[in-house]
């Protein structure tokens, strides 16, 4: 056998450590494509034995990019531990404001920093200019808007959580501060501008998709199920709701499932070639029960969005596929910008709500032993599940992060792209690399987050033959 294995290690412009290996047959066609993710699995063990009230702060160390998602998901789970099913209006609205600030900044960062160089400069543009500096030189106005949108979201987080990083805002049963009039007025000055810039970014993403529809229809794309949580009336809700899963045709697999019952509907499988788990829908089984999460899935699963500009954009998005789920992988960017606009609109709505200046911050109920919560984090549905003993110490923690749910889909995207761009060519080309990265980046994965120390993340590409000999090698960065 003359099989060859191509390894891309690690993947650039995604978080943490990942590598792609492509096994070729003797005709240099892709026999197998896999995205390997080196994920730290020690976190759940790390927090065992800690008092439950520390957890919402501690879990932020898990991720340098979306600490607020872990902060809020843990706080929601701990609400249950302290016996609280419904927060006070000020507590829930402050948390929502924090979450929309987080979604706004995260989506802005992904679109302007990571996606826009590919979309605006072209997949095959020189890597020297296919980056955010290149975008800043060619489209300075757009780049400035991206930076300032991200900054606005960060400031919302700071005002609601108390700090730019490692915030303490959400606590079991509520929140530890409200939004002062002065803070509110400061945010109100710029929020209309943020909405307008979000509309502009949405336009870029939509037009890109429409202009490249034929190419994107096959680029790393495939039919899939989709999962998110959803409000009782079917509205998109990024903060709270029951679980909804739909098929590739939009039929409901399950709907409005209380998140406490998630383990009755979802399971996780371990596969020998990956450190990551593989979640699946139990009723379909491990082979075909995988699903996608994140912006594309949320727009696909929602019956409507309760802010006018984002709803209008959703209607336009769904019209492209006649109301059926959109399964174009790069349509994640368009969906992400719909959510960014929705978040900006939600922030504006909340800033005009006087409940944010209320003082009824925390409530408590009857102590429980188990807490389960979900949050629609920027990258997709995030599950936090804890058990706490009579000494208030955490005895069990299980987290399912969105990148884990998108594990199989990212592998499929890699497979599809590799089949299209490598077959018959036994060498690593810049074009292949670009496209693999672009396909994976659409999911905005956050792998083993936040260890970024210099020297740890070069891009190394190896072509290895069946005997393990390196026959080609590329190093970037």
């Amino acid at each position: 056998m003359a099989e060859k294995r191509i390894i891309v290690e690690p993947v650039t412009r995604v978080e943490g450590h990942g590598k792609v290996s492509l096994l070729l047959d003797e005709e240099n066609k892709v026999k197998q494509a896999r995205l390997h993710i080196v994920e730290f699995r020690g976190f759940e063990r790390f927090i065992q034995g800690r008092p439950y009230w520390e957890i919402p702060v501690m879990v932020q160390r898990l991720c340098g990019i979306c600490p607020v998602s872990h902060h809020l998901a843990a706080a929601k789970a701990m609400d249950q531990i302290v016996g609280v099913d419904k927060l006070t209006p000020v507590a829930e609205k402050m948390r929502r404001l924090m979450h929309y600030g987080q979604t706004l900044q995260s989506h802005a960062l992904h679109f302007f920093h990571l996606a826009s160089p590919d979309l605006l400069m072209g997949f095959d543009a020189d890597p020297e200019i296919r980056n955010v500096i290149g975008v800043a030189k060619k489209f300075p106005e757009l780049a400035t808007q991206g930076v300032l949108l991200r900054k606005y979201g960060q400031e919302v987080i700071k005002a609601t959580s108390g700090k730019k990083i490692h915030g303490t805002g959400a606590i079991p049963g509520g929140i530890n501060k409200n939004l002062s009039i002065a803070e509110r007025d400061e945010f109100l000055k710029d929020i209309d501008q943020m909405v307008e810039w979000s509309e502009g970014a949405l336009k870029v993403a939509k037009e890109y998709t429409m202009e490249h529809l034929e190419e994107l229809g096959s680029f790393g794309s495939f039919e899939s199920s989709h999962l998110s949580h959803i409000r009782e009336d079917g509205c998109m809700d990024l903060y709270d709701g029951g679980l909804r899963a739909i098929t590739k045709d939009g039929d409901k697999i399950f709907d409005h499932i209380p998140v406490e019952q998630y383990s009755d509907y979802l399971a996780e499988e371990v596969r020998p070639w990956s450190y990551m788990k593989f979640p699946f829908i139990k009723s379909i089984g491990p082979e075909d029960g995988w699903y996608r999460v994140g912006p594309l899935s949320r727009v696909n699963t929602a019956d409507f969005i309760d802010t006018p500009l984002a709803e209008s954009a959703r209607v336009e998005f769904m019209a492209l596929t006649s109301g059926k789920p959109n399964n174009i992988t790069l349509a994640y960017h368009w969906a992400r910008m719909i959510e960014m606009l929705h978040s900006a609109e939600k922030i504006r709505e909340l800033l005009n709500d006087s409940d944010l200046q209320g003082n009824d911050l925390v409530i408590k109920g009857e102590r429980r032993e188990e807490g389960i919560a979900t949050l629609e984090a920027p990258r997709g549905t995030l599950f936090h599940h804890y058990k706490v003993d009579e000494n208030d110490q955490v005895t069990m923690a299980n987290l399912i992060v969105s990148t884990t749910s998108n594990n199989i889909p990212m592998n499929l995207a890699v497979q599809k792209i590799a089949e299209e761009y490598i077959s018959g060519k036994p060498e690593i080309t810049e074009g292949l690399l670009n496209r693999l990265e672009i396909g994976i980046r659409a999911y905005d994965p956050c792998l083993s987050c936040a260890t970024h120390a210099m020297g740890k993340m070069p891009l190394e590409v190896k072509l290895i033959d069946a005997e393990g000999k390196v026959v080609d090698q590329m190093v970037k960065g």
Partner: protein
Amino acid sequence: MSDAPKRIHLVGFGNPGRLDDGLGPALAAAIEELQLPNVSVDSDYQLTVDDAHDVAPYDVVVFADADVRGREPFYFESVEVGEGISFSSHGCSPSAVVSLARELFGGPREAYLIGMRGYEWDAFEERLSEKARENLEEAIQFLKKVFQSGDFAGSVIENDVKAL
């Protein structure tokens, strides 16, 4: 040439929950405690594009980070625009932040990186290794003198252990 004191901004970055990756924030916290005149301090898990807006108004920006295999106990180098720009994650390199800041917001005039050698990384623990703590102490004393003297360019210590 203005005689006004330089406005200095220190940005420590890294994840204190990942052992020596927390060297940058630890240095930022220590310098903040010193309350040096004309020195402001910020800290984050990693640098991102919005840091370009934050660093632009300053005369001098110093980034502080942990380094996997750099010079011991630390190095102090000028951040060159366009040198080694890579976009391997949601985070930016100091060079990318400065490039973006100058391109979009017209500053800062000078930028430096202090890279402190770390040794332990791959666990969830909020502490520094003993050797990293020693390196941190030396870096604090060094930066204190540099900030007080204002002589940044003359204080450069090249990293003579380059990445593989």
